[in-house]
C-alpha cells in the first residue's frame, strides 16, 4: 500500500483513525519504516540462546523482566524538614492501556506511609448516627463488595502549567500524578446505613491513621453516592502507600479526599474545616475569594507519546497516544491536533469508556520532518470540553495551582525533539 492512500483528516499529517482498524496502517507503517530504516535488511535470523535451555520455573511472587526494569515512579529527594512528605509520579510515557500497575501508581503523602497491622486497625463511624460502630479489618472483609475501574488524580497534577514559563519536563514529571486502577470495596452507604444516619447530619469527616491524621470533609449526599471504602486495588490488598489496609475512595474527585489509612468517619452538621481543605486544596480566584471543597477533577487529556524529551528518530507514521479522563462522567471524544490547535481530528478511543476512568486514545500521524505542535482535547459525557491553557489561566489566574486541566502542547522540532511549550 502506498502512502498516498492514507486519508489525511487534519493539518500537518493527522491520519484518519479508521486506518487503525484494518491491516491498512500496519502495512503502511512497516513499509514506511523498513524503507527508511534498511538496517536489518539482509540479516539472517538465528535461534536465540534462551530457546536452547530451560529457564527458571514458577515463583511465588512475580517480578518484571530485567530488561524492562527502568520503568519507575519519579520522586523528589527526601526532605528532613518534611518527614515522609512528598509525591511520586507514574511513568505515563512508558505505560499503555488504562490500568496503572500498583507498584507504579502515583503517591502523595503528608507524613509518610504508616506500617499498619490490620489486626490492630479500627474503622470507627460515629457522631450524628443512632449507634456509633467500630469495625475490624476482618469484619469488613465479610461485606459484599463492588469493583469499579476509576482514575485517581492529585489536585496539584500538572499545576506547573499555571506558571508563566513552560516546564521543560516529561509526561511523567508534568502529569504523572494521575493513575488508573480497579478498586474493590464496600459502598460507604452500607456502613453509614448500618450506623443509622441522624436526619441533621450533613457532612462526614474522614480521618486517616497516618502521622498527619489526614482529615477531609465530604457532604453526606456525596458520601452516600458512589463513595467506597476500598480494600483492594487491582485485585490485591491496597498497597501500604495507597492506604493499606483501607482507604476512602471518592470517584472522580481530587485524590486527597480519598483519605488513605482510613480510621474515622464522623458525621456532623458542618464540615471539619481541616487544614487540607482550608489552607491547602482550595482555589483562590483573581478576586481573592477562595473556593473551598472543589472536589471534581476536570475534563482532561494528555498525549503520553510522543511526549516531552522523546526524540523522533525518523520521518514516518507514529501513533499519537494518550489518556483522557473526567471527574464528571466518561470520555466521549478525544480530538488531536498536530498544528497547535488550528485543525483537529478525532482519535480512536481504545479502551472501554466507563465513568471516571482513564480512557486510552490513539491516532496515526505522519511526521514529515517539519515543526509540529501536538495537542489533545477531551470531551466528556456531560458535554464538558477541555479548555485551552490560555482560557483556563485567564479565568482562574495562578494564585492557586490546583485543578489544572487545560490543553497542553508538545512541540516537535525539525530535529525530532519533543518539548512542552505554551502555544
Amino acid at each position, binding site marked *: 500500500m502506498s502512502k498516498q492512500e492514507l486519508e489525511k483528516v487534519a493539518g500537518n499529517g493527522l491520519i484518519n483513525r479508521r486506518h487503525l482498524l484494518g491491516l491498512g496502517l500496519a502495512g503502511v507503517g512497516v513499509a514506511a519504516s523498513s524503507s527508511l530504516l534498511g538496517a536489518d535488511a539482509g540479516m539472517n535470523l538465528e535461534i536465540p540462546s534462551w530457546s536452547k535451555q530451560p529457564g527458571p520455573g514458577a515463583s511465588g511472587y512475580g517480578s518484571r523482566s530485567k530488561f524492562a526494569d527502568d520503568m519507575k515512579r519519579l520522586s523528589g529527594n527526601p526532605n528532613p*524538614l*518534611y*518527614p515522609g*512528605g512528598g509525591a511520586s509520579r507514574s511513568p505515563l510515557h512508558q505505560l499503555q492501556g488504562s490500568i496503572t500497575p500498583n507498584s507504579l501508581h502515583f503517591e502523595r503523602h*503528608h*507524613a509518610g506511609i504508616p506500617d499498619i497491622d490490620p489486626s490492630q486497625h479500627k474503622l*470507627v*463511624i*460515629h457522631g450524628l448516627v443512632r*449507634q*456509633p*460502630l*467500630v*469495625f475490624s479489618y476482618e*469484619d*469488613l472483609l*465479610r461485606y*459484599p463488595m463492588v469493583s469499579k475501574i476509576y482514575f485517581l488524580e492529585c489536585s496539584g497534577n500538572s499545576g506547573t502549567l499555571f506558571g508563566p514559563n513552560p516546564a521543560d519536563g516529561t509526561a511523567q514529571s508534568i502529569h504523572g500524578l494521575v493513575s488508573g486502577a480497579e478498586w474493590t470495596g464496600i459502598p460507604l452507604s452500607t*456502613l453509614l*446505613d*448500618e*450506623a*443509622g*444516619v*441522624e*436526619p441533621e447530619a450533613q457532612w462526614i*469527616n474522614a*480521618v486517616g491513621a497516618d*502521622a*498527619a*491524621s489526614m*482529615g477531609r470533609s*465530604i*457532604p453526606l449526599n*456525596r458520601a452516600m453516592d458512589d463513595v467506597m471504602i476500598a480494600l483492594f486495588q487491582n485485585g490485591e490488598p491496597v498497597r501500604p502507600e495507597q492506604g493499606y489496609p483501607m482507604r476512602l475512595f471518592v470517584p472522580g474527585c481530587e485524590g486527597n479526599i480519598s483519605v488513605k489509612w482510613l480510621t*474515622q468517619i*464522623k458525621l*456532623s452538621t*458542618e*464540615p*471539619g*474545616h*481541616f*487544614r487540607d481543605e*482550608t*489552607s491547602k486544596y*482550595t482555589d*483562590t480566584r483573581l478576586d*481573592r*475569594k*477562595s*473556593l*473551598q*471543597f*472543589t*472536589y*471534581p477533577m476536570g475534563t482532561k487529556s494528555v498525549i503520553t507519546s510522543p511526549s516531552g524529551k522523546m526524540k523522533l528518530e525518523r520521518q514516518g507514521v507514529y501513533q499519537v497516544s494518550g489518556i483522557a479522563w473526567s471527574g*464528571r462522567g466518561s470520555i466521549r471524544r478525544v480530538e488531536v491536533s498536530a498544528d497547535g490547535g488550528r485543525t483537529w481530528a478525532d482519535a480512536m478511543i481504545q479502551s472501554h469508556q466507563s465513568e471516571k476512568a482513564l480512557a486510552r486514545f490513539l491516532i496515526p500521524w505522519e511526521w514529515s520532518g517539519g515543526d509540529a505542535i501536538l495537542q489533545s482535547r477531551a470531551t466528556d459525557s456531560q458535554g464538558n470540553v477541555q479548555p485551552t491553557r490560555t482560557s483556563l489561566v485567564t479565568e482562574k489566574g*495562578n*494564585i492557586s495551582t490546583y485543578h489544572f486541566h487545560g490543553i497542553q502542547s508538545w512541540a516537535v522540532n525539525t530535529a525530532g525533539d519533543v518539548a512542552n511549550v505554551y502555544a
Partner: protein
Amino acid sequence: MSMLRKRITLGALSFSLCAGISSAVFAQSLGSPISESQLRGFDLIAPPDGSGYPEGGGTAIQGKVIFESRCSACHGMEGEGTSAATRLVGGDMQSEERPIRTVGSYWPHASTLFDYVQRAMPADAPKSLSSSEVYQVIAYILNMNGIIEASLVLNRDSLQQVQMPNKDGFIDSSQAL
C-alpha cells in the same frame, strides 16, 4: 429521605435477626457498638463550632518557648518559614502582587490551627504536645500574626472568640457539579 432510610435499616435489622446464625452470609451489622466516651482519646476533630476543644490553655508568652524549641527549625524563628510551605506569618490577601497565604492572611477559622497542630505537628513528632502546649503554641502563632494579644489566655472559650482576618474569604463549592 431519612424516614425512608430509617425504614430500610429497620427492615435490614429485623431481617438479620430472623436470619439468626446465617448473619455471616447476609453480612449486615458486623460493626460493634462503641460509645462516644470510649472515643474521647481517639477523636481529635476540632471544628469551628468549638465542640472539639479540650481542657487546658495558656498564653503566647508560654508558646514562644515551645515554638523556639519545637517548631522554629522548620518554620523559622519568627514563623517566616524555611520554604513557602512552612511560612506561618504575614501575607495580605488584598496585596497588589500574588498574595502570600499563611495562617494569618488566609485561614478562615482559628479552629483549624488547633486541629492541625494537635493532629500533625511538630512534623517530626506529631501528637507529642499536651493540649495546653497546643493552645500556647498556636497562641504564639496567632500573636505573631497580630490576631491576639500576647497576654491572652487561650483556652476552649477564648479560642472560640478568635476572628480570623480572612474569615469571609471562602465560598463553599461542595455542591457544584
